[in-house]
């Protein structure tokens, strides 16, 4: 089989949704200059991956796309792009935003086959490869969810206002006063004044405490099938909170949901429910290590846990221990006759996590009102009953 011109690779990757800058194109072409003549195909793949990947997702995706390019696969758009909200209004970037699906060219005999050279292993390992030889690169393809939600109209301005109130309510106490500390940058003015008072003997450096870190707010969104009903509203909420001034870190547990990074539902059972415990564990292992006493964590989930409840218990115990305040926002909590009987909510209540109804702008506003009334994050008293 003839190998495509290496110069066509960057354009091909861009068409498949992988953001490749001109500088990276130059690097890629330089890295491939001697390929396939003298360079081992696996070695070429490793070079391309090092140059073009930017995160673990693209680290896995680049070999798949390069293998597809090598065998001349055609790029087709995914049929359903509704679940790709582009949280910041920018839907163009990131490997996860690869809205295309790469369908193997008819008669392509090398889909994941041995001896294919570039990327054959990755295609075999990837969960996108199927028996028909199709390589599904789209991360955001939606698998037929119902559109019935409790919310029928999205009050965007109400959400934005509630998000602003939330930013205020969850703001840590700040002061312009300079705080002296044993460590930190030297304050030359204060040192000078201090030395004048003692005539310079002994000379003592006056240091300022480092600036307070900004508020750390996290929204962990359950994107499993059971949450499909309010997905448009969830997206709008995430978008409103991710923007300034709230600047909430929005995640699908351990996956980042910044613009263009909305994940698919790999591993989420189609009939609903998710394994919240392992997802929280994955979050705590990675991004959750940044949680601190002033962090405010909101879990947006219906609490339909399908995994081992002991894992969820351990994860919630660790989460409550690390963060300043953890709240559970359930889109179902305000429905008539609601009882927190599903396993996730029962476990959350045992660990002193408050369950609040959040299903539209007004209910989110009410939740923010509760935050304001209880003194925000800083004054939140933890009522943790470990395993009680």
């Amino acid at each position, binding site marked *: 089989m003839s190998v495509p011109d290496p110069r066509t690779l960057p354009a091909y990757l861009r068409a498949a949704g992988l953001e490749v800058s001109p500088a990276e194109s130059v690097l890629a072409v330089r890295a491939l200059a001697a390929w396939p003549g003298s360079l081992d195909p696996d070695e070429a793949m490793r070079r391309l991956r090092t140059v073009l990947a930017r995160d673990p997702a693209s680290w896995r995706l680049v070999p798949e796309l390069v293998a597809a390019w090598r065998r001349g696969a055609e790029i087709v758009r995914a049929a359903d792009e509704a679940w790709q909200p582009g949280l910041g209004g920018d839907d163009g970037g990131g490997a996860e935003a690869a809205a295309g699906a790469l369908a193997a060219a008819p008669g392509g005999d090398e889909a994941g086959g041995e001896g294919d050279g570039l990327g054959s292993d990755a295609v075999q390992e990837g969960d996108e490869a199927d028996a028909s030889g199709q390589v599904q690169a789209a991360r955001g393809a939606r698998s037929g969810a119902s559109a019935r939600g409790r919310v029928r109209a999205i009050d965007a301005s109400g959400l934005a206002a509630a998000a602003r109130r939330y930013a205020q309510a969850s703001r840590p106490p700040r002061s312009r006063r300079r705080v002296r500390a044993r460590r930190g940058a030297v304050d030359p003015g204060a040192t000078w004044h201090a030395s004048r008072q003692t005539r310079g003997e002994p*000379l003592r450096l006056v240091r300022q405490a480092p600036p307070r870190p900004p508020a750390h707010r996290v929204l962990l969104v359950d994107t499993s099938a059971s949450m499909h009903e309010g997905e448009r509203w969830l997206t709008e909420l995430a978008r409103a909170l991710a923007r300034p001034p709230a600047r909430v870190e929005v995640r699908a547990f351990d996956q980042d949901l910044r613009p263009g990074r909305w994940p698919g539902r790999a591993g989420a059972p189609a009939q609903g429910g998710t394994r919240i415990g392992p997802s929280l564990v994955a979050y705590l292992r990675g991004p959750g290590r940044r949680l601190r006493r002033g962090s405010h964590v909101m879990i947006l989930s219906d609490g339909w846990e399908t995994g081992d409840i002991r894992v969820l218990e351990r994860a919630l115990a*660790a989460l409550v221990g690390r963060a300043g305040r953890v709240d559970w926002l359930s889109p179902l909590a305000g429905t008539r006759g609601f009882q927190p009987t599903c396993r996730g909510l029962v476990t959350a209540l045992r660990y002193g996590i408050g369950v609040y109804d959040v299903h539209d702008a007004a209910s989110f506003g009410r939740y923010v009102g509760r935050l304001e009334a209880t003194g925000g994050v800083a004054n939140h008293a933890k009522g943790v009953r470990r395993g009680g």
Partner: protein
Amino acid sequence: MALALDPGTVAGRLGAAGYVADADVATAVALALELGRPLLLEGPAGVGKTSLAQAWAKTTGATLHRLSCYEGLGREEALYDWDYGRQILAIRLAEGRGAAGHLATEDLYGDEYLLERPLLRALRGSPEAPPPVLLIDEVDRADGAFEAFLLETLADWGVTIPERGETVRARVTPVAFLTSNRTRELSDALRRRCLYLYVDFPAPDLEEAIVRANLPGIGTALVRQAVAVMGRLRALPLLRVPGTAETLDLCRALLALGLDRLTPERARSVLGTVLKSDEDMRLVLEGDLAALVGP
């Protein structure tokens, strides 16, 4: 494009420093050297991201400049600071001599008052010596503001010292390694300036080779058992998954105890070398230790 140092040579040189590199690592380092780009290493804790930089410095005989990032890290800790105490003493001495009015800016901002921090030290590396190795460790722990500052340094390999009106440019481009545990998403701008390498937990064969390279006297059966135990531990929903560093700690502990194989009873006492949280420890101890240790 023929690389100045091919991946095989890189792997060999890293091996001489006790770092067992697979093809991905060797290629990434070779490309970083060739293209003069920083190498961003991501992956779980304890898989050898930091030790890669240390091993490269060791094998090339270069000076390692390490900057450990944390929240609130600023220019003063990363780039340079002034020795304010000495500056004030110099002013007072000049006052005593009645020469305070004659003090010029250059007198107070000379090299004797400049406290070089890791970034500046790396930029001021001697061209005669091997290229210095700059390790910016756990860059995800630093703030966004520091990341923005880092962009300028990594793009131009130069920094400005405004007090002296001087721009310091690297006389020899440092070999830069940035590590991240993904506790925070780094900006795309920073990622774009770096080559990327994701270091995952090693395959059992590679992990065995790593243990043997670091602990030459260890028995084959013990290594195999330790690596198998670590593989089973990594499959559990632990809050902190043990890495290769913990595998080495476990093997060292077993050697120190004079054991030639791990039993369930002994496992209970050495688990502290690999599990670092109460919740993880309880999960493992409440499980089947015999199955964990294996036949």
